[in-house]
């Protein structure tokens, strides 16, 4: 007797909740003439000199597998980058791995350390992948509910509330998607003691580390006692507008990196060679272009924050990434209702805060990775909508 086809699917995967983003994506894709501020990637194309370097490498015939760990030159450049940016010292031969995007690095780290019964603490609102990846690795995701009054930072109070004897891993993302919030040095200092006391391994997703405004990014691994318990994840997608290239990296203690390589060598073998070549060019010569994009984001950020505040919406000033996460409670709508109605009435797409966890209810994520014209127009429409329903 044979199964129904759907019964081949494992219960773990079958029971994974559908992506809130996916549902909204389908809605938006079927509406014409939409200004989308729901995009989680830069509106810039990868700088030409980076594309050109990759094209040239293809012309010269670089089309084969690379070392599992990634091209040695790239690992050395990553080590140099971490050294000059955060004073962090990593051995490129054993403590750095080039991955298929920062996404794969997070997944590898989880699969390398998590087993049945382990709890994985995930501050919410959070990026959509952490909970599913923790579950797929066999662990139990546990929410750390951050609050708007703390600018959605992780405080000792919210962390302690979520801790248990089974807590093993803490996955953070700062600067944060979806809130645009940052964790400063004092914020981390209040948590390092807890990480040590409860012997947690931290997977620090710092993919937006270059996109900070009004202060340099504080990398957790650089704090006293932290380097040995942090897997630093970063990449090139947001800083250098290289989302589609699928190249990122992880830096961490050699035992963990080694475990990650074991998985990576069997599942991926290596990150795409052309992506690695592009990343090499970006690290070596990409700073000017990166700074130009940063200036553009900053101008948009200030403009949009002012408009949001002037509209009477409650919102903290985002100082990282390219998102702003205002509260829409004054309208009385839920996040989902707000976004659906706003899309239907004004043809602008925002992402409901609930797509990022229950802590996002009452908020919406607005991405300002969009042209100045689109942002201005979208803000005009938002103002109209708020005035109609506020």
């Amino acid at each position, binding site marked *: 007797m044979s199964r129904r086809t759907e019964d081949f699917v494992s219960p773990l995967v079958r029971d994974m909740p559908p992506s809130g983003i996916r549902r909204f*994506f389908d809605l*938006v894709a079927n509406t014409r003439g939409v200004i989308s501020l729901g995009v989680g990637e830069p509106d810039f194309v990868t700088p030409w000199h980076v594309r050109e370097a990759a094209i040239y490498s293809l012309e010269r015939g670089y089309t084969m597998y690379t070392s599992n760990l990634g091209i040695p030159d790239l690992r050395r450049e990553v080590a140099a980058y971490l050294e000059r940016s955060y004073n962090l010292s990593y051995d490129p031969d054993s403590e750095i791995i080039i991955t298929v995007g920062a996404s794969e690095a997070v997944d590898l780290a989880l699969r390398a350390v998590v087993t049945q019964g382990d709890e994985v603490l995930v501050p919410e609102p959070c990026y*959509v992948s952490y909970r599913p990846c923790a579950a797929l690795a066999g662990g139990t995701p546990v929410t750390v509910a951050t609050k708007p009054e703390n600018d959605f930072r992780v405080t000792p109070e919210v962390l302690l509330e979520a801790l248990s004897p089974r807590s093993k891993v803490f996955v953070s993302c700062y600067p944060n998607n979806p809130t645009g919030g940052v964790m400063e040095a004092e914020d981390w200092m209040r948590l390092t003691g807890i990480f040590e006391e409860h012997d947690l391994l931290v997977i620090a997703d710092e993919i937006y580390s270059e996109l900070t405004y009004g202060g340099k990014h504080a990398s957790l691994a650089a704090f006293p006692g932290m380097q040995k318990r942090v897997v630093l994840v970063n990449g090139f997608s947001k800083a250098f507008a290289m989302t589609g290239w699928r190249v990122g990296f992880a830096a961490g203690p050699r035992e963990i990196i080694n475990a990650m390589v074991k998985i990576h060598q069997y599942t991926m073998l290596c990150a795409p060679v052309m992506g690695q070549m592009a990343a090499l060019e970006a690290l070596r010569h990409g700073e000017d272009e990166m700074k130009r994009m940063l200036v553009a984001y900053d101008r948009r950020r*200030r*403009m949009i924050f002012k408009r949001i505040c002037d509209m009477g919406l409650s919102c903290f000033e985002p100082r990282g990434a390219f998102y702003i996460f205002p509260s829409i409670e004054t309208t009385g709508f839920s996040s989902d209702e707000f976004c659906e109605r706003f899309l239907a009435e004004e043809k602008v797409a925002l992402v409901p805060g609930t797509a990022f966890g229950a802590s996002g209810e009452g908020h919406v994520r607005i991405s300002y990775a969009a042209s100045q014209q689109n942002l201005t127009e979208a803000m005009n429409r938002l103002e109209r909508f708020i005035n109609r329903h506020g």
Partner: protein
Amino acid sequence: MKKEILEILEGDGRTTPETLAAMIGMDPEEVRREIAALEQEKIILSYGALINWEKIGEDVVLAMIDVKVVPQREVGFDQVAERIYRFPEVQAVFLISGGYDLSVLVQGKSLKEVALFVAERLATLENVQSTMTHFILKKYKEAGIIFEDSDADRRQVVTP
């Protein structure tokens, strides 16, 4: 602050003082005053739009003319340059290094019109020794703008 205002306006001259003020963290009144001062000092010279005339079927012929000049005592090239740039057909005049002295951009409705301008008005000027005309056949990029750029947003409409 001035530099930021100038950079933004150079990119889009339509940016309102309110938007400018929000983008750089200044007061709109301050921005208005700054802009007025910059206009007064002729640091901001104009706010024209960049048009692709060919696309609407307008007959436009452009030529870059290299001009060799006999420089005048005390005034050098300035007087000749002025005599040249006062012609409305002349879009641009630059003093350049190399084998020629001035580079002149001339616009007309036809090849003949431009050629006649050079022959009758430019080459005949006192102190103009010789000219070399290069007709512009195709514009790829001007004032930082790529003419045939695909502006299409290729991103997925909603992504995490």
